[in-house]
């Protein structure tokens, strides 16, 4: 009877994050490996009074593969979109088209029962955190130069002049994405400007790497990671960055700031990236976040206890956001 335990999280996703209203057209996109999760969120959305259409398709073969045409078409008609899929469709033309038509999208790639019961979802007051997110986002949007440091030895500088921050409050407006419970603000460095050294000591929630046993040291030159050093997990990361044979896989694509006070580091992307007290550096594709680089991959490297300065002013130290 575990569904009784999972209902609260599903309800919060529909009610607080999705803000499903009576009569709103809701589309749940899922695949044949994620049926029970689709049913939970469809039920919760229906309980809010939404008109819920649930779509199932074969799981995608790789992240970003377009969904079948009937599913893409259905997505275009949604006011609220939930995507409990086993392989991501976030970075697809179908998603872009749905967002352009004003959908509010709750991303649930590879969602687990643990996530539905996590404090990151159940305990967090998303509305209260939203103000903080917007202030930090405004600081990035107005800012020109960023310096990132950490007690472990990170010292990275880059320009963000003219770049708008992406503010992921997890309560999306029409046209926005929400990877609940990953509350974050991110910004794309100007291409070619990032220089320094990065000590990744928290996790790489991709490729089966997860929580780090040993830090990964990255050298950054001219906006690209030029060296990756460390133990086995560092080697796995470097292999993954080299294997597509595309130098853009090493592009420093993103600075992301985790802002969910109840998220814990578990090795799962959706929870890790929101952990307050961590930042993540995205490597690879940046165009979906507002940058200019397209690459076949995008991975995030998480580190603890960042200090972020924007134009000489400290905007974050550890778990404290100072704007």
């Amino acid at each position: 009877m575990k569904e009784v335990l999972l209902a609260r999280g599903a309800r919060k996703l529909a009610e607080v994050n999705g803000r499903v209203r009576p009569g709103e057209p809701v589309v749940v996109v899922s695949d044949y490996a994620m049926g029970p999760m689709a049913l939970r969120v469809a039920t919760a959305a229906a309980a809010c009074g939404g008109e819920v259409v649930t779509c199932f398709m074969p799981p995608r073969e790789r992240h970003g593969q377009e969904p079948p045409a009937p599913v893409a078409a259905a997505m275009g008609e949604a006011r609220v979109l939930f995507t409990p899929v086993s392989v991501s469709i976030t970075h697809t033309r179908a998603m872009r088209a749905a967002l352009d038509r004003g959908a509010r999208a709750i991303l649930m790639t590879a969602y687990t029962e643990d996530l539905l019961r996590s404090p990151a979802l159940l305990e967090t007051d998303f509305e209260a955190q939203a103000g903080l997110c917007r202030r930090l986002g405004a600081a990035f949007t107005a800012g020109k130069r960023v310096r990132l440091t950490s007690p472990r030895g990170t010292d990275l500088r880059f320009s963000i002049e003219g770049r708008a921050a992406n503010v992921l409050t997890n309560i999306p407006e029409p046209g926005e994405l929400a990877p609940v419970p990953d509350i974050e603000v991110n910004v794309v460095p100007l291409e070619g400007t990032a220089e320094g050294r990065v000590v990744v000591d928290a996790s790489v929630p991709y490729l089966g790497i997860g929580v780090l046993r040993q830090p990964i040291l990255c050298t950054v030159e001219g906006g690209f990671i030029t060296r990756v050093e460390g133990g086995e997990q560092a080697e796995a990361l470097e292999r993954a960055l080299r294997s597509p044979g595309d130098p853009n896989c090493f592009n420093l694509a993103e600075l992301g700031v985790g802002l969910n006070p109840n998220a814990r580091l578990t090795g799962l992307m959706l929870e890790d990236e929101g952990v307050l007290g961590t930042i993540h550096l995205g490597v690879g594709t940046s165009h979906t976040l507002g940058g200019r680089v397209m690459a076949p991959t995008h991975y995030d490297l998480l580190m603890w206890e960042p200090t972020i300065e924007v134009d000489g002013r400290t905007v974050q130290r550890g778990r404290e956001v100072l704007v």
Partner: protein
Amino acid sequence: MSPPADPLRVAAGARKVVTQCAGLRAGERALVVTDYLTAEVGRALAEAAGAAGAEVVVVVMPPRGAHGEEPPGAVRAALAEADVAFIPVARSISHTEAVRAARSAGARVVVMPEFELRLLAEGGIEADFAALRPLVTWYADRFGEAGEAHLTCPRGTDARFSLAGRPGRALTASALEPGAFTPLPNLEASIAPLEGTAEGTLVVDGSVAGQGLVRTPIRLALRGGRAVSVEGGEEAARLRRTLEAAGDEKAWWVGELGVGLNPKMRLTGTLLEDEGSWGTVHVALGSNAGFGGTIATSRHLDLVLRSATLALDGEVVVREGVPVGHLRAAIPDPPR
């Protein structure tokens, strides 16, 4: 509660629907549109479609409030992208813009309104569709050639319909060409009579779509192609309320005249089974824009008569609930 359907027979029925009725081929894009009450039928069809090597998408919606109500926009959009669509639902969307548009875009459409899992395992699905196809086509051709239909029955039905220039429609339980449509396991021949021409009295003693079997016959007066009165007992009152609730006077217009030709289907009170039942005659009120008529509305209600006699241009094709027209032609009797 009826006993659960035999899963092996369900799977066999689903396979018959997918391969024989829809002619689904490997690599085609199959869409299963179902609702939250009928989803297990949707799943059985999806499995059969997957086994046939198609790329299968399943879309589940809330059941419609009444037969003929448009599906949500997301479903309409999905249908427009399908090669083949299977539509097992509790309330029909057969006569909707969404399905018409899908067919115009080339989809082959197989609909299964008021369907349950057991209907994949037994009943009308067991008929030999291929053997019966020439019979159904024969009746459809007779409809298409006729100028006038005269419908009578021992309980007092006496109605005439002009058919001139309208095409007969054969529902042969197959949808093998782009744009084809068939309700399963319905075998029927029908036609959209000329709007404004139906006159007389209908005494419905079989069933009403969405309501079930009729115990107290319902008497309808037809004037100038529409039902102007609905009299009888409880079922008549309920029918009247349904027609009024449509909020559209076209819901009262005579849209269809047809003959049921599935020998494995019995009059049990569901939309689907009754309409195809061997020897029944049905008159539908409402939408017919999908098969040659001019009535576009959100409602399509089939009224089924048990023991009627139907003559086309004076020639009796159904005599007191028994199809006889084909016996004059060189077509063998259907299997019993």
